[in-house]
């Protein structure tokens, strides 16, 4: 596959899917939260397996884009699938959590074994984040769909802005670790292949990080989003962990926090295998292909597309929340 072809794939096909498909299903999305009779629904027009297949293919492409753009699949999945498919937001959020969880579980082991993810850093932050994600899930499933739609829209626009503005620091400089991180023995060494040497790291501002993880956990549970978009900047820019450690540890934290919220969605009956499994399978396959394409496509262009998609999906969710 040539470089040119790969870039065309991302630059043209993906936005085209977003713009052409919604018109088929958007009407159903509007009525979905109101529970209008099934006769008017587009799922009547297509056989169920067509939707399942479309969801699989769509999740596959989403998986590719997520890896190339360096974002988690969950944050793209919920706003875009809820815009394009006729499923109720409850099931999209339930599937979104399972997608993020399955991805985190399968990526977690190699990251831990290579020493990139740090168990102590992750466990300290995940404990508090998982409690708040349970509350987030309970609140998210209790609120009316249009309120969730509206808050999701604002959150997604906010995430897109964070992605646009956030800086990264490969190796943040920490003058001294804080007391709490010393008590918790949060520090480490990892091998940096690009420099061919071991990098020592430590963290600071641990209490601030804990407070931020309460908020991140709550939002992840409420909207069914994977929270890599927030975990990584907090680990990297607030706590001062190296970028690679931040990305890897974020995956681990995600697996714990999403597990907590996923149970609430499972018990509430908000996880339909018919929606969740094709999404998990498509996304996992897509991320594997995406990892192989990573060196061939211009990640900067894809990142711009992803931010644009998030902004569009966010504004659309806001309009839907207002009933427009």
């Amino acid at each position, binding site marked *: 596959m040539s470089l040119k072809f790969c870039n065309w794939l991302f630059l043209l096909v993906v936005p085209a899917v977003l713009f052409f498909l919604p018109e088929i299903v958007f009407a*159903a999305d509007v*009525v979905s*939260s109101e*529970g209008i009779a*099934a006769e008017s629904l587009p*799922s009547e027009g297509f056989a*169920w397996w067509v939707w399942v297949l479309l969801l699989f293919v769509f999740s596959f492409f989403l998986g590719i884009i997520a890896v190339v753009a360096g974002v988690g699949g969950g944050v793209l999945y919920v706003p875009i699938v809820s815009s394009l498919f*006729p*499923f*109720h937001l*409850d*099931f999209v959020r*339930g599937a979104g959590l*399972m997608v993020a969880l*399955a991805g985190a*579980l*399968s990526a*977690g*082991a*190699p990251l*831990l*074994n*290579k*020493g990139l993810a*740090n*168990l*102590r850093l992750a*466990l*300290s932050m*995940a*404990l508090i984040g*998982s409690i708040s994600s*349970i509350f987030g899930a309970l609140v998210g499933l209790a609120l009316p769909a249009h309120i969730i739609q509206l808050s999701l829209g604002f959150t997604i626009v906010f995430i897109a802005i964070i992605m646009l503005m956030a800086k990264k620091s490969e190796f943040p400089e920490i003058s001294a670790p804080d007391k709490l991180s010393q008590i*918790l*023995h949060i520090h480490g*060494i*990892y*091998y940096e292949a690009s420099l061919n*040497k*071991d990098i020592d790291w430590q963290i600071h501002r641990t209490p601030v990080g804990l407070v931020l993880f309460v908020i991140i956990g709550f939002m992840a549970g409420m909207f069914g989003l994977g929270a890599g978009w927030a975990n990584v900047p907090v680990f990297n820019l607030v706590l001062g962990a190296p970028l690679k450690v931040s990305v890897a540890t974020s995956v681990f934290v995600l*697996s*714990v926090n999403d*597990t*907590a*919220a996923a*149970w*609430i969605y*499972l*018990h*509430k*009956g*908000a*996880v*339909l*295998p*018919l929606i*969740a*499994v*094709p999404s998990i*399978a498509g996304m996992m396959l897509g991320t594997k292909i995406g990892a192989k394409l990573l060196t061939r496509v211009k990640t900067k262009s894809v990142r711009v597309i992803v931010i644009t998609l998030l902004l569009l999906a966010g504004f659309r969710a806001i309009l839907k929340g207002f009933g427009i």
Partner: protein
Amino acid sequence: MNEKHSRPDNAQRVYGQVLHWVSTLGIVFVILGFAIYIFELFPLKVPISDIAHNWHLGAEELNRQFHLPTGWAWVNDMLHGDVLSFASIVYLSGATIICLAAVAVVFFREKNVIYTTIAFLQILVLVFAASGIIGSGH
């Protein structure tokens, strides 16, 4: 490069190994469960077409319409294809608890009081969420 330095500690290695097997098994279960479901190798509790005609409804409404059990009540219907597929997803959601239990034992053996406590509390939080004490029913 100092290999000795950058090697993960024992607890982290154990977590990684358990996670590898538990998650691999989870993906296999999810795919098998779904194949049983969509090819109707076992009878279904709710026909697929009925779910597809109503997936625009909220979770609460859909469950009420088909009298679907919430919480752990689905365990009584395990010989149904759709319930088996659901069970495979439940297994995936339990994977982290299994890994945490393994690492809690390692921390305990190492007499690491702080992380034994954190791992134990984390297990308690997840088991509490999994119990269905909160979240199940409407």
